Every structure is written in C-alpha cells, then in structure tokens.
C-alpha cells in the first residue's frame, strides 16, 4: 500500500499539474470573484495550501505560480487585451 502511495507521489505530469491549477483557479475565483486578480503569489500559495499540502515539494511550489499566472491571464482578458 505504502509502495503504491510512493508511486503515486512521484510527481504530477505537466498536463495533470495544469488541470489541477485550472480547477483550483476556478475554485478560488468562484469564492473570491474578481478579487483574485489582486492576490500576489504568496497569497495564492497560502490559499492553496489546504489543497496542495499532500503534493511533492516541486508540485507544491509550482502550483501557486500556475494559478497566479492564470489569474493574470484572466485579468488581461477582462481588460480587453486577452487573446
């Protein structure tokens, strides 16, 4: 069992990481609305902590970056500069 867990936590693939960031961004946005655009990376990391605590360090550190990046993209879209 423990071996299975160890295998599982070898790390998430890039696609998985992106999907998780997507889900977390949606979740935070639904909770905070447009205030998410004012969050800095540390704030995002703090808010994501309950959902990312069981991840490996690399993923744990990468997720706040990815989510924060998504917020910035969303802000650009809202300001009319988005793709």
């Amino acid at each position, binding site marked *: 069992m423990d071996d299975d867990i160890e295998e599982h936590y070898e790390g998430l693939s890039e696609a998985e990481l*992106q999907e998780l960031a997507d*889900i977390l*961004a949606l979740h935070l946005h639904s909770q905070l609305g447009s205030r998410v655009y004012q969050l800095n990376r540390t704030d995002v990391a703090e808010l994501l902590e309950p959902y990312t605590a069981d991840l490996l360090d690399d993923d744990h550190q990468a997720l706040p970056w990815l989510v924060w990046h*998504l917020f910035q993209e969303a802000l650009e*879209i*809202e300001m009319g500069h988005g*793709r």
Partner: protein
Amino acid sequence: MADLSSRYLNMIRGQQQRGGFQFTARSVLPIIAVITMCGSAVHWWEVQSQLTDNVIMAVAFTAIMVLAPPVLVSFLIPWSPGGMLLQKIHARTWGYVVVIIAALYLLYYSFEIQYSWWASQPVVADTGLIWQQVLIGIIGFIIIPALLCTPVNSEDLVEHVKQAHLVKRYEMQTQADIAILRNTLLRAQEKALVGFANLTAEERSELAMTMQGLVKGIDKTLKEVGHSVKTVSGATIPFKSLDDNEEIRGYLDYIHETLTYNSLPADQAQSRRHIAQYDDDDPADVPRRQRPARRTDDAYQYDEPVAGYDDYDEEPPMRSRSPRQLRG
C-alpha cells in the same frame, strides 16, 4: 499553449463575451440611424424622381440629400471633447464657413421639401401636424445620422491640433519678433540722434550693417518656423519678409542714412570742413554747433574738429565724453 484549453480562462472569456455588449443609447443610435437613412432614401427618391425624368440625376440628388446633410451637420454639432476642440480650431477657417453655409442651405432645402410633401398629405394637412412631421423628419433624416458621424478620426484630430499649435506659435513668434525689432530700431533711432555722432565712419557703417543683419536674422527665424509648419501640415504659410514691411524698411533706411551719412569720401568731407570754416566768421555760431545735434544732418560737424574751436574757452561738449577719449 495550455491557456487556450484552460477551463478557467474559457470561463472568463465566456463571461466577457456575455457581458461585453451593453445595451446603451449610443449602441441603439446606429440602428435608428440606419433605419432613418433608409427611410430618407425612399423619401428623397420619391421627391427627386418626380422632379426629373433623368434617373441618374434623380439618383445623384437622392444620394446628396441622404448623405450630405448629416455629414455637413456633423461638423456643426460635435459631441465629444475632441470634436469640440476641432470645431474651435476650424471655426477660424474659410472652409468651416463654407461648411456652415452649405449645411444651413441643405437644412433649409430639406425643410422646404418636407414641408411641401407633408402639406400635400391630406390627413396631416387637415390635422395641422405639418410642422411636427417636418421636424421629426429633420431629426430622423439629418440630426441622428449626423450624431453618428465623426468629422475626423483620432489621428487626424491630433494632426489638426498639432497644426493649429504650430500656426499659433508662428503667429506669436512673428508678432513678438516684430515688437522686439520695432523696439530695437526705435532705441537705435534715439541713439542715432544723440550719440552716434561720436562714432567713426567705419563704426557707424558697421552698426548700420548690424541693424540690417538683425532684421535678416529675424526673417530667417520666421522662415524656419514657416518651413516647419509646412513640413508638418503640408500647408504653405505665406511668409512676408520683415524687410518687405514698409514701416520696418523705413526705420532701417533711416538708421542706415543716419549712420552712414558721414562716411563721405575724404575730399567731400574736406570740402565740408572748409565750408564750416568759412561759416565760423560769426563766433556766435560755434557754441550752437557744439550742442548735441537734434538733426542728424548736423552730425557731420562732430566728425572733424570745428574750425576756430581752440579760440573758445568753452569745454568741448560731447567729443570729450566719447569712449575712445575716456580710454585714451
């Protein structure tokens, strides 16, 4: 990359598209304008086709009456800060006067024709609603489409403002230069009357050249400003040289004559000295000539020592105060 497939970003994009269109008065205005212009085309085609059998002329006049009044009236009723500024700039041009006249005539023509048309409608004539119908027609056919038209786009507006600024600067600089020049020349004129007699012929000649050079220098500056206006705007600003200005020319000639009057050939100066010597038979004349000259014609008397001068005890009046003597 992954952004395009991001569900989160897709949701944001979806929100933007849903919330992007706001139902405002301005967004409805184009719809009304298109409808009224179509109605205008029908109305004017009916009128113009009755006025002539020539289809091309009727089409042309219909097009004129549908398009020209809104476009010209749009110059008269700006409703943006840029439009207001543009109107202010254009207000002083002949083109704007022409636009006003043409727009007013088209409004009058439109009013007359619509009045006649509605007056020929029995129901309207019977109910006395001709005026009301005509005014609604004017609003719908002309005013509303005019509100949609912007006389120029933002880039042109910036260009217009830049051009107006340059022309204003040119005008101000010209006036300032003329004022400075007039002041300088008048000051020089005063000094010429009093003190230039103490200068040598060469110095006076040099001073006259300096004055001419001053005017030419200002002319050059103005030409440069005019050229920069032309470069930016493409419009040629007619440049009137200061040297061509009759008044300035008069000042210059006067100063030139005043300063160079004494630059006579040596023999001529000698003969003048002899004449002065013969005039000195009456000693009472001498002190009068030694007073500062009020007429420039007398200035030559200070160039050379006055004959019989040493016979008088009176101190030399101006010669003694010349800078060269003070230095010496």
